[in-house]
């Protein structure tokens, strides 16, 4: 049976399979650009972060340094004042040792104390600015003066001490002391002033850091927004491309389906026309020839044996030619479909296969209407033809059953045989592909249930529309024997 073997799947249309190289290069460039931008943004953020961290640490150290300097100065100043005070006190007590009760200091201790004072003065931090240096120098000068005077005083005896003690204290010691305090308070206020200045400098640097941070963050933000924008555009482009590709794919799939549908249609149309041609032209001429030969044999005398035998011979040749032509025409396009309708045609086919093979075929139908569309009839007819031929030739089945049932919205066709079956997952010949194609193109489903040793059931469900013939333009042919 030549049926269906030509419906090979056509090559996929090549269009829209590969993007053109121009846009591919473009995409590559864009990807590289995005990668670079991301790296830059990341680098910017890292630099800004590290810089801010280092600057804060530096500022912290500077601020600590400022307060440490202030504290050491304050401390040194306090030491100086205290030591000077102790010294003054010792001098005073030495002078008044005769009037006031109490232990008189040893002149040696007093001399020692002057060394302490001197050490305290030297202990003032060395990183002094000129004003400080000046004040300290004044203080030192006065202390030296005081030391010189006091060295004399310490040598005084009791009478001299009694006579001049008060005078010395009032005129010398107290002004000195006052002066020292003045100087130290000047130094102190100078230091405070400096502290304020340095704190201000730290604050300024902090502000600078702040503004730099703001700048860097803004820069990163702008860059981020820009990159996001580019990314967004890129994604949109990709989406559009994907959509286009999907549409192209869907379109080519549709085209493919249309193509194979047209293929089946063309095949059917071709068969029909060849069948008609064979039958109408060749078949009818041969039929007429037979009639004429019959006439001829009557015209010739029955006694003319030689001519009669010749005529009989001609007749038998013509008859066998008629038979061959009819068989071929039937196979190509059974006129039963047009003359009788689907079920009688299926019954004819069933008997035809029963006659030719060892398989007995039965047809059962349930409420199948007689005015099915041409498409439906041909689809079901070819489906049954293919399934029965497969069963008769390959499965050594003894019995087969064809069941056609029509419901309101679909027609179910089931062909069952009791042959040895096959594995439909592994063996899928052109015949099955052809069946699938016909059914799919009709919007139906085909299921093949078989396994070795279990027989085969081919089941198709076709959506049913009472007046179909969806896209084919077949003229309803009524032109047969």
């Amino acid at each position: 049976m030549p049926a269906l073997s030509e419906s090979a799947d056509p090559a996929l249309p090549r269009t829209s399979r590969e993007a053109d190289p121009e846009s591919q290069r473009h995409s590559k460039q864009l990807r590289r650009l995005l990668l670079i931008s991301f790296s830059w943004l990341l680098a910017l953020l890292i630099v800004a972060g590290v810089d801010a961290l280092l600057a804060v640490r530096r500022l912290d150290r500077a601020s600590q340094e400022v307060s440490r300097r202030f504290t050491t100065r304050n401390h040194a100043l306090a030491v100086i004042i205290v030591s000077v005070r102790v010294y003054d006190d010792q001098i005073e007590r030495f002078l008044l040792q005769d009037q006031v009760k109490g232990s008189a200091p040893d002149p040696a201790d007093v001399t020692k104390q002057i060394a302490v004072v001197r050490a305290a003065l030297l202990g003032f931090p060395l990183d002094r600015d000129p004003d400080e240096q000046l004040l300290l120098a004044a203080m030192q000068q006065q202390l030296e003066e005081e030391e010189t005077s006091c060295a004399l005083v310490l040598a005084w005896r009791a009478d001299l001490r009694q006579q001049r003690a008060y005078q010395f204290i009032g005129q010398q010691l107290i002004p000195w002391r006052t002066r020292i305090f003045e100087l130290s308070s000047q130094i102190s206020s100078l230091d405070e002033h400096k502290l304020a200045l340095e704190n201000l400098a730290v604050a300024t640097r902090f502000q600078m850091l702040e503004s730099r941070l703001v700048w860097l963050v803004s820069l990163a933000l702008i860059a981020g927004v820009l990159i996001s924008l580019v990314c967004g555009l890129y994604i949109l482009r990709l989406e559009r491309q994907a959509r286009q590709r999907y549409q192209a794919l869907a379109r080519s799939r549709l085209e493919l389906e249309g193509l194979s549908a047209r293929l089946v249609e063309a095949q059917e149309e071709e068969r029909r026309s060849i069948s008609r041609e064979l039958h109408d032209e060749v078949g009818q001429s041969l039929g007429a020839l037979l009639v004429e030969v019959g006439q001829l044999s009557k015209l010739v005398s029955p006694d003319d044996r030689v001519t009669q035998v010749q005529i009989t011979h001609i007749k038998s040749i013509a008859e066998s030619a008629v038979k061959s032509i009819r068989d071929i025409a039937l196979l190509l396009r059974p006129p039963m479909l047009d003359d009788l309708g689907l079920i009688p045609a299926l019954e004819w086919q069933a008997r035809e296969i029963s006659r030719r093979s060892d398989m007995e075929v039965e047809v059962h139908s349930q409420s199948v209407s007689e005015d099915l569309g041409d498409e439906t009839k041909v689809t079901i007819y070819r489906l049954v033809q293919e399934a029965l031929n497969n069963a008769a030739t390959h499965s050594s089945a003894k019995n087969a059953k064809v069941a056609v049932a029509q419901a309101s919205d679909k027609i179910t066709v089931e062909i069952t045989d009791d042959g040895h079956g096959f594995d439909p997952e592994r063996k899928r010949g052109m015949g099955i592909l052809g069946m699938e194609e016909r059914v799919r193109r009709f919007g139906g489903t085909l299921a093949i249930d078989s396994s070795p040793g279990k027989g085969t059931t081919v089941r198709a469900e076709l959506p049913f529309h009472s007046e179909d013939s969806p896209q084919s333009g077949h003229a309803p042919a009524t032109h047969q024997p």
Partner: protein
Amino acid sequence: MRKIRILLADDHKLIRGGLRLLVEQQPDLTVVGEANDGRETVSLAKSLKPDVIVMDIGMPNLNGIEAALQITQANPEISMVMLSMHSDESYVLRALKSGAKGYLLKDSAESDLIKAVHAVAEGKSFFSPAVSKVLLDDYVRKLKRSGAEDAYDLLTPREREILQLVAEGKSNKDVANLLNLSVYTVETHRSNIMEKLNLRGIPELILFAVRRGIIS
């Protein structure tokens, strides 16, 4: 003697010519018209009122079966012989259902046409011997393969008698008169026959009779 008036319907002029030649050799037959397709046949049947129509099953613009259905409705008195290439029972049954009485294979038209025309003109059935043979072969093969018994064996002699008469085209009343039975009894026999043979309607009954060679 009144000649049997015949209408020939075939879409091939060659075939019509051959058929006309055959018919006109007979002294009691005459061709009153020729039709080229189904529609023309229906309208000529109405206007010419022939006794017999010899018609090809496959014709353009309304095939022979559809045309026969319309003619049976409009002019039931006209007898029809269908010409066909197919000996399959699907065709025979459809032809019978459409009202035709004769069924002739084109191959054997030349030898059987005259017999067929005479038979249907008398209200009898006629089938090409080859048709009976094919029908019987199918039937026997099926019985053998399925192991079922021949339903014909279930019939009583009286039922077989009635089956033949009905298949030959006799009405219940004719059968009752012939066999000296009441119409009611004949009806009962008929429905028993139909049930035993699992037949639906007279065309299937005639087909069965042809198959078994009860009528030809």
